[in-house]
């Protein structure tokens, strides 16, 4: 499974991390916990509710399940202009 990070998360984690998912997949909440444990430098940010998970270009809730072939993107709050 490919995880992509943007903004401050990309500073802390790099743009991309590859992880193996079990056959039953992971929920987004479980993924956040895995990232927090394996990458303590991003722990506070990845747990924030303002950081949204995105699958297939759509935001998904923390209960959404993702599988090995999925790409999951994590967005901190956006700001243009």
């Amino acid at each position: 499974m490919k995880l992509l990070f943007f903004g401050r998360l990309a500073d802390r984690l790099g743009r991309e991390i590859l992880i193996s998912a079990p056959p039953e997949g992971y929920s987004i909440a479980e993924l956040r916990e895995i990232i927090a444990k394996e990458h303590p430098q991003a722990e506070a940010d990845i747990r924030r509710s303002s950081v949204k998970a995105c699958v297939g270009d759509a935001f998904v809730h923390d209960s959404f399940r993702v599988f090995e072939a999925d790409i999951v993107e994590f967005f901190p709050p956006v700001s243009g202009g």
Partner: protein
Amino acid sequence: MAVRSRLVDAPFDADRALGQFLAGLGGGEGAVVSFVGLARLLSKKGSRIERLTLDHHPRLTKRSLARIASAAAERFDVSAIDVIHRCGEMKPGEVIVFVAAAGPHRRAAFEAADYLMDRLKTEAVFWKREDAADGSRWIDPTDADYADRNRWER
């Protein structure tokens, strides 16, 4: 209705953008309002900014610009909208964003430009980092930015 939005990764000339926008109008307009946002020289703490970086998403950033431009075109009595937004690294003084709105009367054009900027500040898919003399900071929208955005809720 001419609605245009562009994402650019190199410096652009706001004068030229306005000239092109004016040249492309249909002729029925009585008002054009444009806004130019610049990369600041000083951070909120007053330290000198060396570089501003706008991280973006390979698909959703362009889509967010198009959605915001279309929403302004639908909502206000305007005949043309243009949005140009930078991404990547830029120096203080460079143009980050250009918006323009044209219509038969000034009020709608002013409101459309204001609306475009309020939504861009809080919904355009970018992540902004200031690298200043005293360190680097990611810039989130402020409460005031969200309040400005919420003025347009119906």
